[in-house]
């Protein structure tokens, strides 16, 4: 076993050399150390070529060391855990890590699609809008599939994600994004003041740029200051530090989104643990200490592997003790870039030259150059010689016009720094331009948020510390904490002088957006064609739309657009900043809401009893309801349902109807209240009686129906349909609190309090006599149809008994407190055994309601009126009620409306299906004679044929007419007769008997 890493320094860095980690990249085995990212480990192993670009399949190397990386994207892990487009620069190395390069075939080094580069003169921005139009059919057949195959980057696993996710809430006074000097100083100040603090850091180590750039704070080396600070923060119980956590968005009311990569640094999450957790953080104040991102300079060949951001290069050297190159040049337009030279020299690397675009270089750097024995060239890099094995030579255009060449195997580039303005701009804020640093800085922020440090363009260490500290103190004070914050940490400010340089003219492709292969000439072309608005530019060229979200490309792109369109950069403006700050796994947003736990499940009081009986369940909203109870030997559900229906019609059966919404309406004005919400009158309902009610929406359309009983002078018990239970409660509360606050009425949902069963069939009374206390009079006189009252049951419990019927049979509904629901089901079986009692499910319930012509969900579809349903006469003319006026509009009372009618096939053996349309007999179906449709159907064991309900134009006037049921979707066409919707016992004798 060897852990030889050719580009690893002997000492230094924040890696644990005692913990070697094995990993594979494109099948080849390597070693890195604990503390590495995949990118730093690849650097340490001398791997330069890591990916291929999106369009031209150009060889690409690692450009950055952070979440702004456009090039070094890999497929991480294998099998069901394969993650496409993972940034090697943020992937924490673990033992056994497997990664593969993307968007290449057959291999990274020999990629057939790199032939695209030959066609690059044609594959310019927006070329596809101008071609692939002929012949029209070829788009879907040929062009588009080819484009789709070529596009995209990595491959998703294509199978269910085996890992778990969850979501959590957190609350604090001060939320801090970033743990660099600014963030740590802010945490110190806020924590000392007594505030509840949450600090989020996307890295796995705290310190931000201090980890790469070092420095001296309060007289201590940066590393020591970090440990001292963390030790102090650890003593504060209300300061919470979350590493591997990125704050990705800000939402209204001080709610922030953050993603915690709980176990991504392991091969797979430990048992019972999640892979990632989505945080919703509610913060009174937020300090954005997200730092800044170094930006490239656009020049020909700037995408050659080995060209790297200057700050990234010193991160690899200083933090990871990994050397991206042996002989490097620096191309900079600012003072900060020189720090890479210092770091490289410190690590013993060779500096071939510094190309500084500025007219002048500081005396300190000039002497550094002479001491280090390398030249300082005033000019710009205008070309790169090299290929998939990396940079070999760079061409330099010197300020005087001469050219020079420098042999190097690595080029560090610094075009200046862009403050991370994302979080401050996500509420459609537009950052403002600052000439002195040639960058956009935040201009205001969402309420409660403030930026500090490099995120505002204050790049010096001293400024970061003092700004961060001040921001933390103010945030704590604003959140109501006035404890002593003490003094701010102190450090010097480094010089930062910059001469803007965005683009170096030269031959060859000069990349602005590396990942999407957008070049400087693409931007020029976009301008020429009128796509001058930055939003048009973005959309036409795809600039900034890649997985790096334009972090390295956007500002350079608009600077070039400004140049070619003759506007200033601020005039050109930025595109709208949109969350998330880094791409976030969709699984994390879902948390545990997937598979069977996607939504909650509601169980009826008799659920587990029904399960024991072998019931088949159906989802009704969130409910699981027994759909039917199959018995051995039954060949299909139709047979089971027919048996259940016959058992009810011929004897007795029962069904759990607890899913109906149940509402206690209390108070002296309860009756008056119900008069206003129902179309019919309830204030005159006698105590001990039930009545069917229909309520409208204010627009005159039917809202819901159900029976309401008067249990006492000031107490009604209202039922709703299962589907509308919540909505009706909300509506009634609106009526009570907002529309009619003068009424003394109180509402409570008692849906969960009562287990309610429908007991139906000619033997119902016999069954009830077994279970109800013999003192109760259940005779037709003692308990007439639509009676409702409390009764005692044998064994001592009280029940509410309602003589109502949905099936059309002699029937009661009985309610017992819900914890007796299971006992009730068992007792009904016991009491009814001698009468052949049969439990029935929702299917049989549906069959019997259709046989009886009762309306339900398919007819109450949100567009039907009371009259459409045949209930127009219920509308009281003597009172105001919700929906009364709008129900009278001309189109709602038009004579040709589609109204509920019964249908039966003329061929008795024919099956009906819902959704078939009704066409006059003998006519060819078309939009002009489409007269309605079939809403509900069933096989009626009672009629021994299929029957149904339909909404048909003028249907009630056409009873007896033969029409055509047209069902082209299922290839069926047949004649049906329009008939009375009440197929069973039309005069209602059975339910009254």
């Amino acid at each position, binding site marked *: 076993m060897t852990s030889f890493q050719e580009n690893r320094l002997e000492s230094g860095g924040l890696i644990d050399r005692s913990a070697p980690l094995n990993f594979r990249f494109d099948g080849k085995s390597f070693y890195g150390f604990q503390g590495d990212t995949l990118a730093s480990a690849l650097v340490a192993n001398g791997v330069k070529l890591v990916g291929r670009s999106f369009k031209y399949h150009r060889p690409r190397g690692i450009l950055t060391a952070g979440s702004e990386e456009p090039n070094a994207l890999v497929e991480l892990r294998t099998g069901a855990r394969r993650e496409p487009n993972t940034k090697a620069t943020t992937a924490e190395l673990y033992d056994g890590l497997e990664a593969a390069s993307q968007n290449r075939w057959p291999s990274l080094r020999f990629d057939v699609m790199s032939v695209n580069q030959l066609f690059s003169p044609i594959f310019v921005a927006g070329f596809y809008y101008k071609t692939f139009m002929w012949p029209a059919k070829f788009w879907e057949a040929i062009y588009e599939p080819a484009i789709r195959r070529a596009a995209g980057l990595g491959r998703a696993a294509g199978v269910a994600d085996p890992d778990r996710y*969850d*979501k*959590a*809430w*957190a*609350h604090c006074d001060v939320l801090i994004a970033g743990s660099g000097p600014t963030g740590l100083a802010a945490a110190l100040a806020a924590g000392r003041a007594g505030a509840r603090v949450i600090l989020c850091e996307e890295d796995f180590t705290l310190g931000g740029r201090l980890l790469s750039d070092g420095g001296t704070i309060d007289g201590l080396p940066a590393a020591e200051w970090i440990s001292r600070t963390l030790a102090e923060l650890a003593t504060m119980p*209300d300061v919470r530090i979350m590493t591997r956590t990125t704050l990705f968005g800000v939402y209204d009311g001080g709610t922030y989104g953050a993603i915690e990569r709980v176990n991504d640094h392991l091969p797979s999450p430990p*048992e*019972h*643990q*999640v892979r990632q957790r989505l945080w*919703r953080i*509610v913060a009174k104040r937020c300090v954005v200490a997200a730092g800044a991102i170094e930006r490239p300079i656009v020049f020909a060949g700037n995408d050659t592997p080995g060209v790297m951001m200057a700050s990234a290069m010193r991160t690899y050297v200083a933090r990871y003790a990994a050397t991206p190159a042996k002989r490097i040049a620096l191309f900079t337009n600012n003072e900060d870039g020189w720090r890479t030279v210092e770091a490289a020299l410190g690590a013993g690397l060779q500096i071939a030259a510094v190309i500084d675009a500025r007219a002048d270089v500081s005396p300190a750097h000039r002497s550094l150059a002479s001491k280090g024995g390398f030249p300082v060239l005033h000019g710009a890099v205008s070309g790169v010689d090299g290929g998939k094995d990396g940079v070999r030579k760079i061409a330099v255009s010197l300020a005087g016009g001469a050219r020079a060449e420098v042999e190097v195997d690595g080029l560090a580039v610094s075009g200046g720094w862009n403050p991370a303005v994302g979080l401050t701009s996500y509420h459609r804020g537009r950052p403002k331009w600052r000439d002195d640093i040639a960058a956009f800085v935040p201009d205001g922020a969402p309420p409660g948020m403030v930026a500090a440090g490099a995120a505002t363009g204050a790049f010096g260490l001293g400024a970061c510390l003092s700004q961060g500290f001040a921001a933390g103190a103010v945030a704590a004070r604003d959140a109501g904490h006035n404890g002593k914050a003490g003094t701010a940490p102190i450090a010097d400010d480094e010089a930062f002088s910059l001469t803007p340089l965005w683009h170096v003219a030269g031959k060859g492709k000069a990349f602005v957006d590396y990942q999407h292969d957008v070049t400087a000439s693409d931007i020029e072309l976009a301008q020429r064609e009128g796509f001058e608005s930055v939003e048009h530019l973005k959309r036409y060229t795809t600039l900034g739309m890649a997985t790096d979200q334009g972090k390295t490309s956007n500002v350079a792109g608009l600077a070039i657009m400004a140049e070619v369109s003759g506007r200033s950069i601020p005039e050109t403006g930025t595109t709208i900043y949109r969350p998330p700050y880094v791409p976030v796994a969709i699984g994390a947003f879902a948390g*545990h809401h997937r598979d069977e*736990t996607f*939504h*909650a*499940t*509601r*169980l*009826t*009081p008799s659920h*587990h009893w029904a399960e024991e009986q072998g019931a088949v369940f159906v989802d009704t909203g969130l*409910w699981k309801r027994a759909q039917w109870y199959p018995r051995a030997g039954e060949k299909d559900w139709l047979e089971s349902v027919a048996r259940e229906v016959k058992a009810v019609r011929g004897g007795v059966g029962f069904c759990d109807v607890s899913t109906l919404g149940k509402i*206690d309406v*209390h*108070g*002296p*004005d309860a009756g008056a209240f119900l008069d206003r919400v129902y179309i019919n009158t309830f204030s005159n309902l006698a105590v001990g009686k039930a009545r069917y009610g229909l309520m409208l929406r204010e627009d005159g359309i039917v809202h819901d129906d159900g029976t309401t009983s008067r249990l006492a002078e*000031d*107490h009604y018990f209202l039922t709703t349909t299962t589907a509308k239970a919540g909505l009706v409660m909300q509506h009634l509360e609106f009526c009570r609190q907002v529309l009619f606050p003068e*009424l*003394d*009425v*109180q509402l*409570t949902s*008692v*849906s*969960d*309090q*009562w287990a309610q069963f429908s007991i139906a069939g000619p033997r119902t009374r016999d069954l009830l006599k*077994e*279970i109800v206390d013999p003192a109760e009079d259940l005779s037709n006189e003692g308990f007439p149809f639509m009676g409702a009252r409390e009764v005692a*049951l*044998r*064994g*001592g*419990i009280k029940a509410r008994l309602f003589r109502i019927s949905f099936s059309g049979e002699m029937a009661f509904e009985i309610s017992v*407190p*819900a*914890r*007796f*629901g*299971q*006992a009730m089901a*068992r*007792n009904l079986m*016991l*009491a009814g*055994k001698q009468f052949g009692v049969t439990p029935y499910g929702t299917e049989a319930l549906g069959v019997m309601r259709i046989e009886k012509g009762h309306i339900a969900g398919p007819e109450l579809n949100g567009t039907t009126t009371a009259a459409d349903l045949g209930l127009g006469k219920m509308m009281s003319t003597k009172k105001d009620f919700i929906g009364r006026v709008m129900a009278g509009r001309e189109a709602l009372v038009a004579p040709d409306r589609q109204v509920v009618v019964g249908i039966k096939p003329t061929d008795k053996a024919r099956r009906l299906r819902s959704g078939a349309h009704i066409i006059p007999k003998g006519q060819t179906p078309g939009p002009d004679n489409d007269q309605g449709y079939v809403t509900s159907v069933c096989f009626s064991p009672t009629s021994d044929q299929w029957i149904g309900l339909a909404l048909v134009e003028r249907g009630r006037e056409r009873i007896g007419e033969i029409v055509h049921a047209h069902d082209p979707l299922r290839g069926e066409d047949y004649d049906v007769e329009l008939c009375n919707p009440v197929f069973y016992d039309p005069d209602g004798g059975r339910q009254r008997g």
Partner: protein
Amino acid sequence: MAEFSWVSRSPLEHALVAGAHGARGGEAGVSLTEIRNFDLIQVMARRGKAVDLANAAKERFGVAAPDAPKAVQAQDATLIWSGPDQFFVLSRGGKHRIGALGQTFAQSASLSDQSHARVLISISGAKARTMLAKLSSIDLHPAAFPVGMAAATSMDHTSVTLWRGNDRTDGQAVFNLLVFATFAESLWHSILDSAAEYGVDIKHSEEL
């Protein structure tokens, strides 16, 4: 004539398996206890009678009924705020039934029996807050949610009543949760899922 037995069954009877759940080794981070034998009556002031209701409550329970999201401990009942001008009376089974309370509040309130409509779960342990943060958007920090604080809120899109009871003898906070009966099994599984990584100790009790 058949003999009918009326066994009261908790909606959690099927789902609750007493013992350990989730991560093992070390003390369970979360303790869950279902309390099974209670009366729960919703009391709602009639129009213009809030003051009368308060007086009647004070007379019966010796404490003022809560007029803000709080749970007030009386000698043999807990009065839990459930909305403007309304509260729950939670008591050990049989102590304060709706019939008896109906007389107390006959002049001032409407009553609705919710004894069977809810399940009562008591949650405690070193990781109770951490676990609840996955389900509840309420700030449960000791300063924000002290003993006696209550909330009508939602967990996992399900309405619940949450309040902080007296601390355990070992000083751990106790969170009480009233959950709608028909949602109880579902929310129970969500709680177990959320708590599994900390280790869970599960039991039930007839004692309030």
